[in-house]
């Protein structure tokens, strides 16, 4: 393998590592890395020496910046859309760029592409520098770059920022409910992917002194995707192995083509499609075999400090909640008061607005006035509420596969933290007191819900009752003082219900306000201090359990219904 070939493979690896960040770390299906490679390659060729004549370094930097900007623009829309549409958008982008390259031959050289003087000189009169960028220089530079990128990926995998990405990948809606800024994390990751793609394109253009549409075609985009998927989820060596395979691909395709008298480009296409199908089919089984159990648990459990407040302060007060969907009233001037140290049950027939009320309290819907600890709080989204200590559990069990039980809780512990520069700090700093502090939070949360024994376990193997409790632990780990629990007892056995009852009392006993949406009146009677009854979006009654039970309207509207779901 000559130095040129090696350097070229390494530049391709830069694009693959960048793509891995989006695809296998953040779970974003990006099918158009070739488009960003094209921006870098053609940008450098058009702006740099032989084109506009800008200094080489500046031309490279400008085109990488342009690709980052383009990536950011696509991501602004894409962060709102579900995965498949992002795949479609990036796939369309790959073809758009390809067609633009072919449609304007005066600018781009058409199918032949552009040639530039090679080897290029990196000249800086100010520094007295005139470096000839020989293939060997390329190999050294790009090898160092790849090492640095692999280092970044490895660190990401081990630390809190990687945990954020894992949460993003395994359960985006859940990640949002735990306070992780999903949209902005996606934008950041996608922008980085685009910029690294452009850097790769710029590098190989400078190396070869040549760029053609077939170097940045949608086929190349798919080959990069194959390379990234080869290693499965979140493994740094995936792209490395993948690029090695890709480097071996053309000679094999060419040999097949010449022996069979077939078209070279077509046989590469067939091989790529076959590889893509194989990688997809193998993804599951290989991934399961390689899945490693979670890291060892943090320091030993510190006993949860009981924080009993006899005054039972009001932690959350909401009033004037009005919500309607397409003219159907879901909430009409509803309100609720949650106090620390109390379990507050929210009951009502199906469709009475329980889930809508929960959404409003969690910051999912904007309506009425919500005061947190006496201060009016305006939440733009769920994250804002998580930051002031209000967290919700989902109605259904949402488990992030591939994350061990304690890691799932650690995601919650991350969520409450300020996100700014967390990634940068994480990449630069050694595992800090902050991280050990986080481990303590995780342990304490698991302890509070009585799940210390599941640390490191595969959450999908847990009983559904333990999974429900894990959701609660995740919400607790955000540091929430107000817990909004949407039917935590659903699907639990009688034993598990009584365990849950104990956990709820513990959580309240430690000073939290617990809002419990529940159908099972026995459980409500056992654990709740107060009850609010909703009927057609209105608060029918609210107060201590016994008082509400005796309320005639409640007996008529709710308790009187014979088929109360258990």
């Amino acid at each position, binding site marked *: 393998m000559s130095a040129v070939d090696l350097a070229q493979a390494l530049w391709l690896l830069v694009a693959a590592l960048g793509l891995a960040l989006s695809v296998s770390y953040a779970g974003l299906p990006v099918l158009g890395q070739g488009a960003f490679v094209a921006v870098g390659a053609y940008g450098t060729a058009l702006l740099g020496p032989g084109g506009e004549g800008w200094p080489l370094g500046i031309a490279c930097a400008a085109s990488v910046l342009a690709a980052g900007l383009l990536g950011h623009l696509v991501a602004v829309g894409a962060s709102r859309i579900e*995965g498949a549409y992002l795949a479609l958008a990036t796939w369309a982008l790959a073809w758009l760029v390809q067609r633009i390259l072919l449609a304007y031959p005066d600018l781009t050289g058409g199918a032949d592409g552009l040639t530039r003087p090679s080897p290029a000189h990196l000249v800086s009169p100010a520094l007295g520098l005139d470096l000839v960028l020989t293939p060997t220089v390329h190999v050294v530079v790009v090898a160092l770059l790849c090492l640095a990128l692999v280092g970044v990926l490895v660190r990401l995998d081990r630390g809190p920022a990687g945990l954020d990405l894992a949460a993003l990948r395994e359960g985006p809606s859940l990640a949002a409910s735990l306070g992780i800024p999903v949209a902005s994390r996606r934008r950041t990751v996608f922008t980085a992917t685009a910029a690294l793609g452009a850097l790769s394109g710029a590098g190989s253009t400078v190396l070869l002194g040549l760029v053609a549409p077939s170097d940045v075609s949608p086929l190349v985009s798919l080959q990069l995707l194959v390379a990234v998927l080869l290693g499965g989820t979140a493994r740094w060596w995936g792209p490395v192995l993948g690029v090695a395979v890709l480097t071996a691909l053309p000679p094999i395709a060419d040999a097949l083509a010449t022996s069979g008298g077939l078209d070279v480009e077509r046989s590469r296409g067939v091989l790529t499609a076959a590889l893509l199908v194989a990688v997809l089919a193998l993804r599951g089984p290989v991934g399961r075999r390689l899945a490693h159990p979670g890291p060892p648990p943090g320091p030993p459990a510190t006993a949860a400090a009981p924080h009993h407040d006899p005054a039972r302060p009001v932690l959350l007060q909401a009033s004037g909640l009005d919500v309607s969907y397409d003219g159907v009233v879901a909430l009409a001037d509803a309100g609720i008061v949650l106090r620390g140290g109390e379990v507050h049950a929210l009951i009502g027939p199906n469709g009475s607005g329980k889930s809508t009320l929960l959404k409003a309290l969690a910051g999912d819907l904007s309506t009425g006035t919500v005061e947190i600890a006496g201060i009016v709080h305006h939440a733009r989204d769920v994250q804002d509420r998580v930051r002031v200590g209000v967290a919700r559990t989902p109605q259904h069990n949402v488990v992030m596969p591939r994350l061990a039980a304690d890691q799932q809780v650690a995601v919650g512990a991350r969520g409450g933290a300020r996100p700014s520069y967390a990634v940068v700090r994480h990449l630069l700093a050694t595992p800090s007191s902050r991280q050990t502090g986080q481990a303590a939070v995780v342990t304490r949360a698991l302890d509070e819900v009585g799940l210390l024994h599941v640390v490191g376990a595969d959450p999908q193997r847990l009983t559904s009752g333990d999974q429900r409790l894990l959701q609660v632990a995740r919400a607790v780990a955000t540091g929430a003082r107000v817990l909004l629990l949407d039917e935590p007892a659903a699907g639990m056995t009688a034993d598990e219900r009584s365990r849950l009852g104990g956990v709820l009392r513990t959580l309240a006993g430690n000073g939290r306000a617990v809002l419990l949406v529940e159908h099972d009146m026995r459980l409500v009677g056992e654990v709740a201090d107060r009850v609010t009854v909703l009927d057609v979006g209105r608060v029918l009654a609210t107060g201590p359990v016994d008082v509400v039970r005796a309320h005639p309207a409640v007996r008529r509207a709710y308790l009187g219904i014979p088929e109360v779901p258990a």
Partner: protein
Amino acid sequence: MDAGLVLQVVLAGLSAGAVLGLVALGFTLIAGTVRVLHLAHGDVVVASVFAGVLGVLGRTPVASLLGPGRSVEFVLLVLAAGAVLAGLIAVVAVRPYLPDVRRGRPADALGWVAGGVAAGLLLRAVLGLLLPQEGYAVPDPLRLASWTSDGLVHLPGGSTLPVRTVGVLVLGVLVGVLVEEFLVRSRFGRSLRAVADDPDAAALCGVNAGRVVLVAFLAAGLLAGLAGLLDAPGRAVSVDDGVVLGLEGIAAALLGGPGSLRGALAGGLALGLLQAVAVYAGGASLQDVAPLSLLVVLLALRPQGLRR
């Protein structure tokens, strides 16, 4: 700019749009029932045409006029190829990645997205191995060009238009509306949409979701064959044309509002018109660039489509 020229641009655009509408209709049918973006749909359109060419004319096709018997053979072959290819894609590349409650399998969007893209790539590559030329002339079994004696329609102001263009417009819109009406009114269409609206309830009523996926793809495959029959004759067709045609169909579907069959037809006409105007004003280089740019911008700004 005289009226005849305007009419020429508008009719040519609407004619291309009628084909795009049929492509969009197939895409919307699948997006609405299976909740899958069929990224190989355009490739099925082109591949079904070439399957017919290979079957009737062989590997070195000469675009001669086909006799009545061979015309029928060609049409049936194209339609069958569309359905078979789409069905294969459904079974091999899409269904394994759909959620399956009974087996506890979660949805895997990356799986069916990449599966569809791989299927399209495979179709293009295999066809490209069999048919190495840049482009091929495809026979027209409907003989739209022979509707008038000189094959032209004379517009006011002296400009002319191939009669094929008008024929494709008329037939395309007619077929599109008929299929749309069928899907909206027939029992078959209603049961498809019932599954789309509430898969769980449909499953409770005994509808086999796996079979619905296959049926939706087969129907979309037939539509792809129809679109190919209208679109391919009259120009040089390359085996690579499918991807961009498919993406244009998706842009049309998004323009018309996701899930709306009628919207897909209207979106197709609108996109065809837009494309014709862009090419008239900005040159032939915008032929593919304009609709693809529109698609990327649409997805970035309003992924849920323009309506709603």
